[in-house]
């Protein structure tokens, strides 16, 4: 290579670098603008600025809503900064990123007729400019995606998404925890709750709302009836599928129906329960009907987890048992069930948690819409109060009950109810985990 060529090459490299620098500077500017929009918003909101909303809001809701809005608004700026990094490091990826940003921003500006949509226009123009600057670099010799940049970007994006997903779930629990704790008191858990009293409370004539004791007990009763039906059926089915069935048409059919049942939406199971138990069998809304319908809902779940647990038991356990002269049934009972008990118990507990939080089925078969909340200890003939249904009835109570004066308190108390429900659910999950670890340790000796 002659010196002349070398100089020309060096110059073109410099030019390319300069262009990349300019383009990425534009993106940094766009990112800063986007971020500042978010921050300005946050400060106006938290400083009690012009953001004043009527309706179902209070200061705590507003703070949560504002913070989540701002977090969402900061995401585009993050993406813009990433694009700036890419532009600096890889020409081939850079123009793809910047033109994609341009397109997205323009499309969003054009189609979203919302407040702040000018922001998208600004971003779109800036990124269009950057793309134009970057275009001569496309025809350069290094037009190949750099593996290092791809690796860094991929890792960054995946880590970000993973943390956002985990953060969303943690945020959900935190939100329930913080807002639910507002009204939590011993009387809220031990007291009893009536509609007239709640309406008086919302109207501002009484100071105490009462509690959700009956709902908690009712939910637990429903779940126990449900498990009384679901455990024997599910375990029997799982044993049959894992230990006794051979691969033939009948087994395939049974499996097909179990999978279909797993896919049936809970509201349809509720409707079926209504037609069968409430109407045909004249149970009315009842503990028995609700429990059995719930059992139908979690049955496939129980079967599947128990079957997988039994299939995971090593064949040598069965052979050893058979070699000692045990019958098939004895082998299943003493060897297979014992060895798979951690998995089976986890499945049962998870199903229990799911049944505890299920609303649609209980609404149509167990509790009904009437809002009856007194606990009657009868299997049939009396509606059973249930915690998730109580939470669900909130809008009916609040909007229909003339509770405009204390709407905020009303929502807080529904959130407190959900807090209690979530704590019960998480407690069941924790028990499931502990039982699994303990039993696995005991059985495998590790």
């Amino acid at each position, binding site marked *: 290579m002659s010196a002349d060529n070398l100089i020309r090459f060096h110059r073109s490299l410099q030019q390319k670098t300069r262009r990349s620098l300019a383009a990425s500077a534009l993106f940094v500017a766009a990112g800063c603008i986007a971020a500042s929009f978010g921050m300005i918003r946050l400060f106006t909101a938290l400083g009690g600025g012009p953001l004043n909303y009527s309706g179902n809001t209070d200061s705590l809701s507003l703070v949560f809503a504002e913070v989540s809005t701002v977090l969402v608004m900061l995401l585009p700026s993050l993406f813009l900064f990433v694009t700036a990094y890419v532009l600096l490091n890889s020409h081939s990826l850079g123009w793809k990123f910047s033109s994609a940003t341009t397109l997205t921003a323009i499309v969003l500006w054009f189609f979203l007729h919302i407040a702040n949509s000018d922001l998208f226009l600004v971003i779109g123009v800036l990124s269009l400019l950057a793309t134009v600057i970057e275009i001569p670099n496309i025809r350069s010799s290094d037009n190949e995606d750099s593996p290092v940049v791809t690796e860094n970007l991929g890792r960054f994006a995946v880590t970000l998404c993973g943390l956002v997903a985990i953060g969303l779930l943690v945020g*959900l629990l935190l939100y*329930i925890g913080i807002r639910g704790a507002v009204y939590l008191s011993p009387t809220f858990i031990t007291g009893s709750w009536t509609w007239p009293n709640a309406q008086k409370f919302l109207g501002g004539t009484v100071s105490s709302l009462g509690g959700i004791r009956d709902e908690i007990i009712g939910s637990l009763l429903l779940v126990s009836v449900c498990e009384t039906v679901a455990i024997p059926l599910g375990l029997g089915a799982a044993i049959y599928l894992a230990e006794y069935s051979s691969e033939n048409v009948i087994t395939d059919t049974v499996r097909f129906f179990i999978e279909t049942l797993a896919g049936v939406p809970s509201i349809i199971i509720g409707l079926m329960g209504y*037609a069968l138990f409430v109407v045909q069998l004249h149970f009315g809304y009842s503990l028995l009907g609700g429990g059995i319908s719930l059992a139908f809902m979690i049955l496939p779940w129980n079967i599947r987890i128990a079957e997988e647990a039994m299939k995971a038991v090593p064949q040598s356990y069965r052979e050893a048992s058979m070699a000692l002269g045990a019958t098939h049934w004895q082998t299943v009972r003493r060897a297979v069930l014992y060895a798979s008990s951690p998995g089976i118990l986890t499945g049962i507990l998870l199903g229990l948690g799911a049944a505890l939080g299920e609303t649609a089925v209980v609404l149509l078969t167990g509790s009904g819409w009437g809002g009856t909340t007194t606990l009657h200890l009868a299997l049939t003939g009396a509606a059973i109060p249930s915690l998730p249904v109580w939470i669900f009835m909130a809008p009916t109570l609040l909007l229909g009950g003339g509770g405009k004066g204390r709407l905020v308190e009303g929502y807080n108390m529904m959130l407190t109810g959900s807090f209690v429900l979530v704590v019960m659910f998480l407690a069941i999950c924790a028990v499931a*985990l502990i039982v699994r670890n303990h039993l696995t340790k005991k059985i495998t000796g590790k």
Partner: protein
Amino acid sequence: MTPLSRNGLTRKLRNLVGNYAKRFVKLIYSLKRSPERVPLFLCAASSILVIFFILYSIINEGHAQIIDWFEHGFGMIWYPGLGPYGITPFIFSTLYVGFGGAIIALALGLPCAIYLTEFANKRLRNVVKPALEMLTGFPSVVIGLVGFTLVCLALKISLGGDSGQSVLAAWLVLGVMTLPTIASVSEDALRSVPQDLKEASLALGATRWQTMIKVLLPVAAPGIMASFLLGLGSATGETMAVIWVIGNVFPSPPITLNPYVPSNVLTALIANRAQGDSTYGSPEWNSMFAAAFVLFLITAIMNLAVRMVMARRGKESGSVILTRRP
């Protein structure tokens, strides 16, 4: 016909009968040896009975309306209490809401699964993976309440509008709700890819990201597809999380691709109209059963798709335990 072929036919017939007889005798013997087989089979067959109950009650109550829909079209307006009972807009927005929610969940859940399999440190994974499995059964009514008090409010603040109740809010809520299912099942799929495929790719000098994109993802694709379809099924059939945030529009939700409008879905329609101002056995109740039939068909198709995807999956993708929220 020659005698030879007749002989062949008889032999075939005799073999056939003999086979069935042999199987029958075998069955009798196995029943005698282990009589517990019968009750166990009945337990397994109870699911068939439940499906039969469901279909029976749906068809028993809703057949007139179903026939009417198939003869005169599905109709555009569901006027509560009075009729007519048409569900075309409800079907549209059920699918629109379900797909949107599942796509959001996949967009977050798949990277989350990749992160947990390849890039997260072991301690974080050991905490997050069981937590995801547990959260698949999280009470949906609570997610709906959070959607109502937080997501709708945030949307109202940032996008304007009356209450923030919209398809967009339902997407976000369903996205969070199906996220654990999709992330956890995709993670299982990615993890069950045989280690030697990955090692071979790394040994050839591919980076971890290239290995992930070019080896792990294609091999685990059926499992990931199944996770998406599972999420889609539960998003489509979800009632309580949606009913808070969708807006419950009657009599005719808009058929539009604009996500920031209040709408209504089949599940919410059923839950709303089951409230009791029309009595059981009235035309509206029967139409609700017919709507349930349509919903059942939609979810059954999604379920069949899961089966087909998992049946076509190659041997090397290993086993994936499919759990979804019941």
